[in-house]
């Protein structure tokens, strides 16, 4: 694939990520771990050692100081070379909902306290935002943060908290007054051992099953003032900035999967013979491959464009929503094509193609559903 978007260094970084994932994240038992919903702790440790968790964090805080395009290139490489998309999903949740908001909105003390440990992977980050009654309508959240002297007292319940069963730090959103709507939302850094924080049973998912998820309950959970992230009532800005990053970079993994799938499908249709010739010679099969190729080629520039905008500190809310909407749709369609191209074998779990379809479906839901992306785009067009 001709790579017009990457510099020589970025291509090297991507190749290194591919080599790393092939040699260190190789997981012959992925089907079992997917079935058992097992988080790959050793894989997490290996990723930290490779430097993935430190990439967007400046060296001052124990990171490697890579830019957004570097990150996208590396994530695309990882997505290409490992089938453990759940592990990569956990890494994305950790980076974009913890490291980046702390870097952008944290006090100097908060940065020094958390970023080095998030960068080494010693501390795993989780994002406690969604609630049972506040999913897409996230800012109608009911979890309260009541100011009492030098602390806030959190009460409420969060759901769909990725990484919760293994996390040591929860970036948590609560409102100082529900009647204020978005103007009351405030972000907090809550450590796992804080009295009053309870992590519920793991939630079983359709896909991304190796990325653990649970509900989290705050029951009179006292948070020192110093643990507030950003200004009171400005949690929306913290949340939106983390979603902007997440929507851009989480799709990079998907690009990698789509690229690998395309290569595997091409190999399959050349080798598989029916009616006396390779099945790729049948136009109806070839057309599926063509569609997969077109989706990949049109998706890549969208994702890298987000990186370029973020690199120049330009807003990317619209571009991220467009990319999220389009790439997640392409991702699901290409997974379905991969199954159809493999016929009955594609439907069998041991081929791991259905695993990728189940993972792909999540992309139209996490970081804002497809419907929410359309709302964002419509709003940006001032409709």
């Amino acid at each position, binding site marked *: 694939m001709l790579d017009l978007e990457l510099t020589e260094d970025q291509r090297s970084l991507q190749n290194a990520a591919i080599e790393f994932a092939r040699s260190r994240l190789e997981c012959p038992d992925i089907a079992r771990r997917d079935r058992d919903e097992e988080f790959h702790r050793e894989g997490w440790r290996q990723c930290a050692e490779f430097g993935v968790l430190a990439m967007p964090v400046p060296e001052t805080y124990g990171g490697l100081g890579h830019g957004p395009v570097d990150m996208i290139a590396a994530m695309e490489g990882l997505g290409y070379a490992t089938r453990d998309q759940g592990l990569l999903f956990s890494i994305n949740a950790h980076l974009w909902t913890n490291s980046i908001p702390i870097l952008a909105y944290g006090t100097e003390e908060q940065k020094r306290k958390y970023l080095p440990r998030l960068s080494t992977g010693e501390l795993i980050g989780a994002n406690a935002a969604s609630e049972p009654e506040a999913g897409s309508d996230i800012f109608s959240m009911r979890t309260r943060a009541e100011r009492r002297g030098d602390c806030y007292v959190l009460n409420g319940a969060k759901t769909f908290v990725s990484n919760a069963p293994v996390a040591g730090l929860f970036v948590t959103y609560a409102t100082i007054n529900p009647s204020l709507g978005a103007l009351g939302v405030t972000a907090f850094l809550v450590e796992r051992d804080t009295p009053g924080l309870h992590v519920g049973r793991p939630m079983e998912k359709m896909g991304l099953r190796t990325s653990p998820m649970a509900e989290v309950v705050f029951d009179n959970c006292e948070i020192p003032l110093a643990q507030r992230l950003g200004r*009171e009532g400005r949690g929306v800005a913290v949340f939106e900035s983390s979603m902007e990053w997440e929507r851009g970079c989480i799709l990079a993994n998907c690009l990698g999967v789509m690229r690998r799938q395309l290569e595997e499908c091409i190999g399959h249709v050349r080798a598989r013979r029916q009616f006396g010739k390779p099945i790729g010679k049948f136009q109806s099969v070839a057309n599926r491959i063509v569609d997969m190729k077109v989706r990949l080629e049109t998706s890549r520039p969208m994702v890298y464009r987000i990186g370029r905008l973020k690199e120049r500190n330009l807003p990317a809310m619209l571009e991220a929503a467009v990319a999220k909407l389009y790439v997640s749709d392409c991702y699901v369609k290409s997974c379905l094509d991969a199954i159809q191209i493999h016929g009955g074998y594609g439907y069998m779990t041991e081929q791991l193609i259905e695993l990728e379809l189940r993972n792909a479906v999540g992309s139209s839901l996490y970081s804002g559903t497809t419907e929410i992306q359309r709302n964002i785009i419509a709003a940006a067009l001032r409709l």
Partner: protein
Amino acid sequence: MNEVKEDIRSYVLQEFLPGESPSNLQDDTPLRTSGILSSVATLQLITFLEEHYKIEVEAHETGVENFDSVADIAAFVVRKKEGRS
């Protein structure tokens, strides 16, 4: 005061009422209580005001008493700039 009102009026028309006749946005037209400004939109407006006028708006100041009309908002901004709020 009039200059501040015009800044706010222009911003609200451009960002939240595209295509609307400027004459329909009066100084006393309700913005929050009419639903023209959601809380997310109000936050966007506040961010604009903070950057434009170099003021800082506290969470407890963001209610309808200060943010329900162009006139209310302008008066609040002027008080802030003068250090009276």
